[in-house]
């Protein structure tokens, strides 16, 4: 396994020559190296597009990738990849109509890239139970692939947040506009508190975290720094652990549809503001230009990466993927 990571870096510069990878013999049973999740709170900020593009880009580097549509109520990742809704989807998995999750795994026609499509046919499937969610995560984790990429739904339901938190590299997508930023912050906030809430080392102060999650609480805990102060007062040892737990929460950031320099700078500002407000280190992975070729590609039901292989957008996506590999290939759960 270690060898594969190193050789990956070595082949990065000329990965465009795909044929070089065809002969590479794959070990029979792989263990998943990493899970990436693409979320961001608001709908229409490009989550599916970015998830599918990252997946194509990562698979072109010779990794086997399964991209999973976890937007359970409004699955459309298959469309972003130019496919029709596959026969078996996650709703068949939840209702036990398929023997295993592998049966939902469908080839995309792009080498090394498979998709597991979200549920769309069964009404109410968006509200999966905790048991089903755990079952799905376990099944996903035992898939035979190098990388899993989650395309998350909009909103901040616990399911979405939990899928986000189960990843190694959690990516938040936002547009440089108030509505998107508002939802992105709500998403970060929800994920942040749920991350702390689920940390077994913080059991003693869980009650306080619960109070903080209710923004109109009576103890006047409004911000993470209020929470930190309260915890420091009541339990200084737990405060140290709280700090450590906060340091483990490192979402990454992508600004989509940037039109101007100040749009690009929004990413830096969000990073700074989050550092001050949440005390977290966010990594600004990069930005994607506003590009009208995207909707042209979507109307033609073709993946953007294949339709416009030489565009700047595709270059930026490739660069982000290389950056993720370079910076986070050691990040493990």
């Amino acid at each position, binding site marked *: 396994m270690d060898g594969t990571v190193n050789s990956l870096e070595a082949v990065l510069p000329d990965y465009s020559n795909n044929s070089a990878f065809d002969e590479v013999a794959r070990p029979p049973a792989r263990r998943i190296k990493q899970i990436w999740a693409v979320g961001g709170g608001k709908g229409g900020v490009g989550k599916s597009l970015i998830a599918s593009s990252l997946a194509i880009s990562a698979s072109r580097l010779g990794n086997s990738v399964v991209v999973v549509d976890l937007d359970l109520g409004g699955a459309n990742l298959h469309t972003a990849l130019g496919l029709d809704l596959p026969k078996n989807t996650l709703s068949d998995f939840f209702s036990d109509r398929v023997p295993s999750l592998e049966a939902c795994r469908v080839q995309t026609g792009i080498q090394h890239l498979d998709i597991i499509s979200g549920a769309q046919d069964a009404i109410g499937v968006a509200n999966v139970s905790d048991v089903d969610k755990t079952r799905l995560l376990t099944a996903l984790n035992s898939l035979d692939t190098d990388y899993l990429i989650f395309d998350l739904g909009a909103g901040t339901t616990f399911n979405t947040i939990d899928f986000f938190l189960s990843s190694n590299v959690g990516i938040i997508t936002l547009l*440089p*506009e*108030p509505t998107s*930023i*508002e939802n992105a*912050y*709500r998403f970060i906030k929800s994920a942040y508190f749920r991350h702390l809430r689920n940390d077994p080392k913080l059991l003693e102060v869980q009650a306080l975290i619960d109070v903080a999650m209710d923004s109109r609480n009576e103890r006047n805990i409004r911000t*993470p*720094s209020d929470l*930190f*102060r309260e915890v420091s007062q009541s339990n200084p040892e737990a405060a140290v652990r709280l*700090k450590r737990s*906060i*340091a483990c929460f490192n979402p990454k950031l992508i600004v989509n549809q940037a039109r101007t*320099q100040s749009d*690009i*700078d*929004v990413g*830096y*500002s*969000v990073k*700074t*503001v989050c*550092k*001050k*407000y949440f*005390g977290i280190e966010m990594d600004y992975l*990069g*930005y994607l230009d506003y590009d009208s070729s995207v909707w042209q590609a979507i109307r033609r039901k073709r993946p953007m990466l294949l339709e416009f292989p030489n565009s*700047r957008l595709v270059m930026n996506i490739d660069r982000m993927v290389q950056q993720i590999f370079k910076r986070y290939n050691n990040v493990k759960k």
Partner: protein
Amino acid sequence: MSFDEKSTHYEILELLPDATSQEVQAAYIRSKSAFTRDNVALYTLVSAQEREDALKRIEQAYTVLSNPDQRAEYDKCHGVWTSDVSKIISIDRTPPMMNASHPEYELLVAPPTDFAHANSDFPGTSESAPINPTPQASGSLLLEEQIAQEVEWHGSLIRRVRETKGISIEEMAANTKISKSNIVAIEEENFAKFPAPVYLRGFVSQISKVLKLPHDRVAAAYIARYNQSTPKQDK
């Protein structure tokens, strides 16, 4: 974590204790622009009061860290360890353009865009040779006297201050995120090529801040002169 009163000036600006003066400058502008009033990145998360407080702390931190004496004093009082005290001072004496290719710079400069490439060999910014420190030192004394008495704040003076401090137009553009052509226009008082009037005050005061000039006075004087010299029909 930068929670509340306990954070040091370094934490406020997200700097390491051995940050160079260049890094301090860059961090200051980055933090400050994040907390500018209309920045969309504050929306719903940071209240007006919190924003004001954050800005105040950023200013305080910068005032101390940008001044070598105050910074040394602060480091001593707070037990901040610096590997080599002379390093901080010597950086200020090094012409900054020698550091222009320094990797830290990329923090503030956006990832390259086509636009930036097209602009990269802008004419009239050829002072990239290191300045001999001796004449600079004596020149800067004279200049400092002039700065103390200055009321007009012509663009030419701003340019002289910039050149004496050894800051190239490119570096100024990178630090302030003001385009090079706007900086040149402001220095040359080339009113025809000016940015929109609403931006002018911000630009002038940004530039003055980088040069550590009294930015309020500079911007006020500069704008006043600009308004007098431009006929109102421009608007």
